């Protein structure tokens, strides 16, 4: 966001896979090669299940040297809608919320990732679906093939197949709507 990189802030609760999503997105982005670079890191500290956590992905065609946290970003993703408190008028980025609700604000994109994940994974683990949604709305940023590669590089083998299915389905669904 004006710093030579595309920034993503992930909000979730401990155990929902927000940091995994941050890593997965970074791995997906760099898998396209061509000198692409990314940083992925959590808001540092002890891990606590259920507590609000943040994670960050910074992506660029060249090296990203700023390792500080972001307070605003090109994309802000909420894996848990109870953490979303609305956006203020200064927000210039896009907000993605995992919810069945609609907000009636063009800057906010709703997607029921938990329902999609539950239908395929048997659990509402929404992170890979939201990566798929992000890939669909970030024009020119990342292809679904890259997301597939990112999942293969990041997730343990037994989780890959179904999560690729989740990401692809989310990518298609979000792509149709936006």
């Amino acid at each position, binding site marked *: 966001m004006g710093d030579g990189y595309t920034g993503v802030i992930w909000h979730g609760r401990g155990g929902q896979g927000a940091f995994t999503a*941050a*890593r997965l997105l*970074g791995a997906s982005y*760099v898998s396209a090669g061509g000198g692409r670079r*990314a940083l992925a*890191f959590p808001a540092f500290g002890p891990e606590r299940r259920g507590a609000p956590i943040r994670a960050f992905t910074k992506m660029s065609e060249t090296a990203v*040297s*700023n*390792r*500080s946290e972001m307070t605003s970003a090109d994309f802000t993703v909420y894996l848990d809608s109870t953490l979303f408190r609305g956006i203020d008028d200064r927000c210039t980025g896009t907000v993605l919320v995992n919810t069945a609700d609609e907000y009636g604000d063009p800057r906010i994109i709703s997607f029921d990732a938990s329902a999609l994940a539950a239908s395929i994974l048997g659990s509402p683990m929404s992170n890979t679906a939201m990566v798929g949604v992000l890939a669909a709305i970030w024009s020119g940023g990342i292809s679904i093939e890259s997301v597939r590669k990112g999942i293969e590089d990041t997730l343990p083998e037994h989780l890959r197949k179904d999560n690729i299915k989740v990401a692809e389905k989310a990518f298609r669904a979000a792509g149709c709507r936006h």
Partner: protein
Amino acid sequence: MNHSFISGNEAFAHGVMLASPAVISAYPITPQTTVVECLSQMVADGVLDSEFIYVESEHSAMSCAMGASSTGVRTFTATSSQGLLYMAECLPYAAGGRFPIVMMNANRSVALPWNIYGDQRDSLSQLDCGWIQAYAQDAQESLDLALMSYRIAERRDVSTPFMVNLDGFHLTHTYEVVDIPDREQADEFLPPYSTENRIDFDTPRNLCFSAGPDHNTAFKLSEHAGISRSRKAVAETEEEFLAVFGRRYTGLTEEYMCADAEFILITLGSISGLCRDVVCSLRKSGVKAGLLRLRYMRPFPAEEISRTVAGAKSVCVLEKDISFGFAGTVFINVCAALQNAGICVPTLNKIGGLGGRDITEEDIRDAFGDMAEGKTGIGFIGMGGSGV
């Protein structure tokens, strides 16, 4: 070469794996834990043929590493913060015994108040223990330092233990693209370790002995000479590294736009990346800013610092450390180097990032602004005022 998206700790673990230490002794502590987890997994998976010794404390981790090193084998350990302080008694012991142990330290604050986040007060408190100290700025350099540290430490003319510092979380837990070298490249660069400084039943010798007032100074002088010779060893090792891996490093320091700089920021570790961005941006607006990154704190790059800042109008040292009652430890060292070289330049000390507090772009711009205004003394970033 393998392009991977991994954390600093994982990158370091891969470097250690390629160095194939015969013995790893370690005790886990945040944010070092994942590096030893990763190595113990490699041993369990059979991809690393090392004796992994789970010890009950950091004091034992270093004692165990010394015992292993005294048998003449390559040895690794890792720690952080309170763990480093707990093993502190053993650090000069390993240095005095001339055991070229490599240790990764995940830089973390020290209690009290209890805090698991990153700053550099742990390693900087141990500058005098006789170890070489390097500070990485990204995960690639971390991996590369894992390999280079053994090459430097094990040289006969150096024979000094080596502490590689990675900023806790900012490096240890941040994922980025890293080139993992091939086994063949690593073997070409790093020969197997062999030494006469070991327990040998055929040629018995006395190791780890006492030395009274008559001989003690001679041993300390020899130790000082060994670590001082590592300056040359760093330069030569980086040439060898470049030849094999194609990546160039710049010795004890790294300069960025310092040649004609009026205002030079001196710092170390992972914050250097953001500082470089700020220097680049200030240059675009006509400010003659420069950055000098200290890659090593021991041996101390006194000559490099003096040479680089000789023509500057002002110098600021930004560090994640404070030596209570005086100033930041890096600042104290820099000022001594300038005084010895007869360089008289206004010096400012910015203390930031303590206990993991974020250092922002604005904080770094402020440091350059304060230099331009001719400010000197010590300031704690974000605490208001510039002096104490």
